[in-house]
């Protein structure tokens, strides 16, 4: 793909939600407008590289999409009355509104939809991706994704969702759903790093782009800033996270020279700002002190806290320089703000670094009775890791094995199996080395 084609695509994806906003405001009927914009975008993909980008690309897209709407109305004779309305409105004034993108996000992340539908609809209507691109990114057939998007749009209509900003009393709840969807999109892209086919519809980058858009519109919202920081700090480690052959590398073993310094700087700055004024001043040993900030400006949300944890890891030059006390405190606050056994699991790792593996194992024992964690492979994996540190290699090996059988990720299974193999007792026959 040429640089010109890339520029066209970036422009189209920036414009698509704006054009959709104009259309929905004029005509209502999100479903049909969304189809019309999608067709206009496809027309632009074909025409612009050949004929050049028009002087007013947004106006061009609005015109083409409006014509598609008219065509749709014409093709259905039962909708003739509507056609008259569409034509009458076609020449209406174009009202630019910076909040269109946000209003669309709220619409696509409507509570009546499942997360998978919210994700798909957001990527199409706000992200400007085609159905084929979304299908490719999620490794499902285009027909499957088309059905999912079509059903999502029907649900949005049936739920009576409007193209508007949520009322103040439901603002936070609705924004939380939007942030969760962006987080899911990021994770889908981040965890799917293996496989040689790096399509341009990289979901992580798309999630970062959309979150930046939200952050630009809501710069004062600490959770939006926190989510963006979390994504940047996580993304910064991408190159170090897997070997060229696709094997996972745990945080402690990653080559930190491969971390992206620019992303880390931006992420740390964002989260420091979002954590509050206390975090701006360097701590005693001139490391970023994110805990003081956390204490000074409640209420803190989970994204800021997770970003603060990621920033603490990112600020350590070597793994052994990690400020585990700060990590531990941040997990404790996170446990209080958003109780979740997964958070406790992560805190156990931090606790083990401070007080020793037995303390970590003690905390893990409190999770054994938790139904949400029963038999979860992450619990087995962390327990194996801590048992290995205590020197109980036989038990560690057994738990690595259980974790390997429990995971649904091929890369993770390979990693866990290799840990188990490494702990093979000397009396056993030597492990056969993987050729790959």
């Amino acid at each position, binding site marked *: 793909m040429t640089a010109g084609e890339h520029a066209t695509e970036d422009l189209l994806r920036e414009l698509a939600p704006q054009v959709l906003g104009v259309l929905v405001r004029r005509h209502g009927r999100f479903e049909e407008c969304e189809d019309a914009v999608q067709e206009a975008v496809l027309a632009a993909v074909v025409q612009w590289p050949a004929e050049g980008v028009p002087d007013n690309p947004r106006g061009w897209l609005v015109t083409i999409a409006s014509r598609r709407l008219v065509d749709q109305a014409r093709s259905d004779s039962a909708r003739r009355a509507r056609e008259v309305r569409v034509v009458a409105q076609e020449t209406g004034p174009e009202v630019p509104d910076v909040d269109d993108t946000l209003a669309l996000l709220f619409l696509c992340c409507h509570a009546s939809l499942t997360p998978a539908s919210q994700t798909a609809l957001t990527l199409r209507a706000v992200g400007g991706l085609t159905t084929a691109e979304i*299908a490719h990114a999620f490794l499902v*057939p285009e027909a499957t994704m088309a059905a999912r998007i079509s059903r999502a749009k029907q649900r949005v209509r049936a739920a009576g969702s409007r193209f508007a900003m949520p009322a103040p009393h439901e603002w936070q709840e609705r924004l939380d759903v939007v942030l969760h969807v962006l987080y899911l999109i990021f994770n889908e892209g981040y965890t799917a790093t293996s496989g040689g086919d790096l399509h341009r519809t990289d979901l992580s980058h798309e999630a970062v782009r959309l979150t930046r858009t939200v952050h630009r519109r809501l710069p004062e919202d600490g959770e939006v800033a926190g989510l963006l920081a979390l994504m940047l700090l996580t993304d910064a480690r991408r190159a170090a996270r897997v070997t060229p052959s696709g094997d996972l590398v745990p945080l402690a073993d990653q080559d930190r020279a491969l971390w992206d310094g620019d992303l880390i700087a931006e992420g740390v700055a964002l989260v420091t700002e979002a954590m509050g004024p206390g975090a701006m001043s360097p701590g005693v040993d001139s490391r970023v002190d994110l805990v003081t900030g956390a204490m000074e400006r409640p209420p803190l949300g989970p994204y800021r806290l997770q970003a603060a944890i990621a920033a603490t890891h990112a600020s350590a030059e070597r793994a052994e320089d990690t400020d585990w006390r700060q990590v531990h405190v941040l997990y404790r606050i996170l446990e209080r703000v958003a109780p979740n056994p997964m958070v406790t699991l992560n805190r156990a790792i931090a606790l083990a670094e401070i007080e020793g593996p037995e303390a970590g194992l003690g905390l893990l024992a409190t999770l054994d009775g938790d139904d949400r964690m029963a038999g979860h492979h992450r619990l087995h994996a962390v327990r194996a890791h801590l048992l290995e540190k205590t020197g109980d290699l036989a038990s560690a090996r057994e738990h690595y094995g259980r974790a390997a059988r429990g995971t649904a990720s091929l890369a993770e*299974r390979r990693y866990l199996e290799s840990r188990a193999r490494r702990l093979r007792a000397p009396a056993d026959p030597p492990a056969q080395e993987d050729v790959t």
Partner: protein
Amino acid sequence: MKFVLNMHMNPAVWESLTEDERNEVMNGHSTFMETVTASGEMIMTQALADPSQSAVVRVRGGRPVVTDGPYLEAKEYLGGFYLIDCETRERAFELAALIPDAKVEGMGIEVRPVMFSAGRLDV
């Protein structure tokens, strides 16, 4: 999350069904396919030929050796599968329960998570 819904076939059970019962199972698959296709959860389905049509290939001493018949001699065999993409494991169970074979005494649907996917699914 992708799951394979495996339909295990027990010929003894199948042969004991009446014509009507068999038709009900067969027709039930059309309904099931319509449901999961409309919901955007269907990826594909395949029905497999009788295991008597199978052959097992082993490379021994650098040469392929082909033997007729299934890999394992068993009372039950894999009759076919659905590949679906749905929100949760619980949803996969719900879908499995909609497959008509699940209602037949002596038969059941195995729900198994997919770990890795490759290849074109659009054809």
